């Protein structure tokens, strides 16, 4: 399971220590949850807000980390779910604002030129647009895989058999290509 060590601690002390147990989970998973959300929504500030909401939700729905050892899977699934919701709710105007902020910051932070940044931003928005249109579970699968989750972690996060993850990935990628070609294909073919 994803969270063996943390959950073993919880089982060893079933009544007290909720605070420290929650803190341990937060420290263990926050980085990955935030990275996933940044990948998805593109704005660190928005991703931080979403990550906090995910952990708050966890704190209210303890079933998953007290009674099961799949807290990591629950967090990744909930985070990508919330991120896709946020992506679908984000207006185009806000996306441009986020893009402008990222463009300025990245331009200051690295050596890449403005044209390269602009193209990268366009690519990012294209993928986000496709993810918004895809079936949620397929978008979640692709995002988590892109963030480096193993087949076992993906299976636990999405509640599917590990022996079927490869096929699910193939299908999700086929869907991605189909939507990408339809939505973006003319100006940037896949």
């Amino acid at each position, binding site marked *: 399971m994803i969270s063996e060590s943390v959950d073993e601690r919880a089982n060893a002390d*079933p*009544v*007290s220590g*909720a*605070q420290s147990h*929650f*803190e341990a989970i*937060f*420290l263990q998973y*926050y*980085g990955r949850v*935030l*990275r996933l959300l940044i*990948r*998805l929504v*593109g704005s660190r500030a928005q991703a*931080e807000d979403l*990550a*906090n909401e995910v952990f708050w939700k966890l*704190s*209210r*729905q*303890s*079933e*998953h980390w*007290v*009674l099961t050892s799949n807290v990591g899977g*629950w967090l990744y*699934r*909930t985070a990508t*779910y919330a991120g896709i919701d946020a992506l679908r709710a984000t207006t185009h105007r806000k996306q441009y604002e986020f893009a402008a902020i*990222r463009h300025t*910051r*990245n331009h*200051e932070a*690295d050596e890449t030129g403005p044209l390269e940044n602009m193209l990268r*931003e366009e*690519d*990012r928005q294209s*993928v986000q647009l496709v993810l918004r249109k895809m*079936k*949620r*579970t397929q978008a979640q699968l*692709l*995002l988590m895989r*892109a963030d480096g989750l*193993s*087949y076992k972690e993906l299976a636990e996060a*999405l*509640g*599917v*058999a590990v022996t*079927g993850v*490869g*096929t699910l*990935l*193939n299908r999700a*990628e086929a869907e991605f*290509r189909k939507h*990408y070609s339809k939505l973006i294909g003319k100006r940037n073919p896949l």
Partner: protein
Amino acid sequence: MSCLTEETLRTHIDGELAAPEADTVQQHLRSCNTCRSRSAKVAAAAEQVRQKFQPLAPEPAELPIDAAVAYAHYRQYYGDEIPNRAAWKRSIWGGVAAACALVLLLSFAPGRTWAQKVLAMLRVQKLAVVPVDFSAISAGNTGNGKLISQLISDNVVVTMDAGKPVITSSLETARELAGFNLRTLDALGLPQQISVSGEGAFHMTLNRDRMQAVLDQAGRSDIQIPASVDGSTVAVHAPRLVRLLYGACSGNGAPSGQDCIEFAQVPSPTVSVPPSLDITALAEAGLQVAGMSAADAHNFCQTVDWSSTLVIPIPQNGSAYRTVPVDGVNGTLITAEPHGNFIGRYALIWIKNGIIYSLSGKGQPDKALSLIGSLN
């Protein structure tokens, strides 16, 4: 060796095959042109998408991430209130348990299942019993049951925590807490114990994709969750539930022996669903998950007014039900037949003046039926 499956090819490409199998696959690829060509195609397609995702990777300026600092901010924003685990456990299940209390009292089934929960929520004024095959979900298939339970619990948000039941021996106290007039079984004297559960409320937003994915995973792709389900929020408000225990009962609630009779009463829960939600189609899918054929599920659902009916799923085998007159209305007597060391179980359920009543216990129902006349 026969040609490799798409799954094996993809798993191999992603480096997720264990060493012995990876070696076998590698050997096969060396000798099989077809599979080598297929493997190259799968790899190219995967790589294409992988490259498209690269721009999503966080920029160096967006890293590093200091979880300790983030935790301090989190505490600052959300405060120190991290409920203890016992309370958390109640918070997730308290509302559900209150809403489903009467069904759970009957717990003939091997476990609480998705079908029970979904069907139990859609109830208000009338009773209907539907025999289903619980083994389709639970027996020998606990993985699916777990997936389904997880699917439900992930989407439940408790808005009013029922809290811990109040235990009392005073009928007056129980009446005050419950807020409605309690019935008693006078022939049995005073109840040994009275438990008053808190008021609870929760809502859940249905996610068609995930529900369908669980069905696919369970090998039931033939069952289609209706599109109207997606994004629908179902809200349940469960009033206080009162349980009166008579006779030799264990301290913690459930009837423990033949001499223990439990008399539960709860005003009907209210369930809010969006008008666009096709409850009948959803219930049809639920019944098919519970082992009913598509035709039977369709026929049954046409006979039920889902806006006002409490549907009680019971196992097809080993249980029976019949209508009996009780308290001036028609009630439903459900019995589980004795077998082996199991002495049988019964529950008599009826609804009167907006209150749902359940008289239940172990053994045969004769004694309970004879007590009906002493209802006060």
